[in-house]
């Protein structure tokens, strides 16, 4: 199991980037009873056979790496959801994209904390490629939205350490407002 929910989100978003998505949408909700998140992309998607095997820890998409069959991200998430009375759904269509949703019981002792959302998102924005990444973040009190393109317009290169630190600061400021 990953140490934080953000780690699952980073893992899923990275899958989306590697699936050649040009648009990735993250939704993250944390409330007193449940935490839920989804990662939806318009990448290359999976065939019915690949989809059926995708959460098997001993399976990896053929061709992703020529001589290796690794790939534990989805398997780890499904295992955590199973162990913690959570939910996990995976939908995918070839050439259309993939959507992964998960939900955990916020009160379950073993539900991982959300973790470092600011560092996670700031890091995801530095992956090479011209993809849009959109995040909708909400609690029962408030919500905010950010996109890679808006942050890039405001700051310039999102791969400069000064700007990465500013993105972290920006997200942390939005998070503070969600909690108050």
């Amino acid at each position, binding site marked *: 199991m990953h140490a934080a929910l953000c780690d699952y989100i980073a893992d899923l978003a*990275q899958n989306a980037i590697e699936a050649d998505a040009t648009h990735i949408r993250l939704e993250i909700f944390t409330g007193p009873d449940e935490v839920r998140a989804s990662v939806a992309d318009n990448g290359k998607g999976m065939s019915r056979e690949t989809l059926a095997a995708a959460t098997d820890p001993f399976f990896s998409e053929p061709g992703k790496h020529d001589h290796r069959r690794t790939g534990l991200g989805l398997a780890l998430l499904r295992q955590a959801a199973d162990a913690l009375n959570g939910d996990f759904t995976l939908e995918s269509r070839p050439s259309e994209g993939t959507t992964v949703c998960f939900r955990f019981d916020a009160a379950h002792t073993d539900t991982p904390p959300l973790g470092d959302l600011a560092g996670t998102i700031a890091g995801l924005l530095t992956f090479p490629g011209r993809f849009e990444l959109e995040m909708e973040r909400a609690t029962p009190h408030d919500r905010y939205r950010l996109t890679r393109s808006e942050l890039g317009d405001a700051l*310039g290169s999102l791969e400069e*350490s000064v700007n990465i630190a500013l993105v972290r600061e920006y997200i942390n400021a939005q998070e503070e407002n969600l909690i108050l």
Partner: protein
Amino acid sequence: MAKLTLDDLRKLRDEKQRAMNMRDPENKTAQIIVGMGTCGIAAGAKETFNAIIDELNAQGITNVLVRQTGCMGLCHSEPTVEVIAEGMPPIIYGQIDAELGRAIVNRHIINGKLIDNHICDKPAMDIIR
């Protein structure tokens, strides 16, 4: 605390640029690339990434691009960090925690010295395209 807006972010960016006297922010001579596959994430690569960003900023280094990437095929040595710096061979370091992330900035980037005992030979053959 008032919500930070994108305009505030623009102003902060301009202030930082002035404060750091960034003469030519386009002139990047080095890249630091942190592996962020499932293996890297599980091994704590995010802490390494954050430490590298903070150390670059603390030292006022502006000629380095920082990126994340997927698995480099060295899952046994995560967190892995590739450093490509002018005048030095490209190096992939393994088992780089936050402290060693800071050492990459201070030793490799600033002083041009390699960090012994953490150099990986090369990425897995199937990763090389």
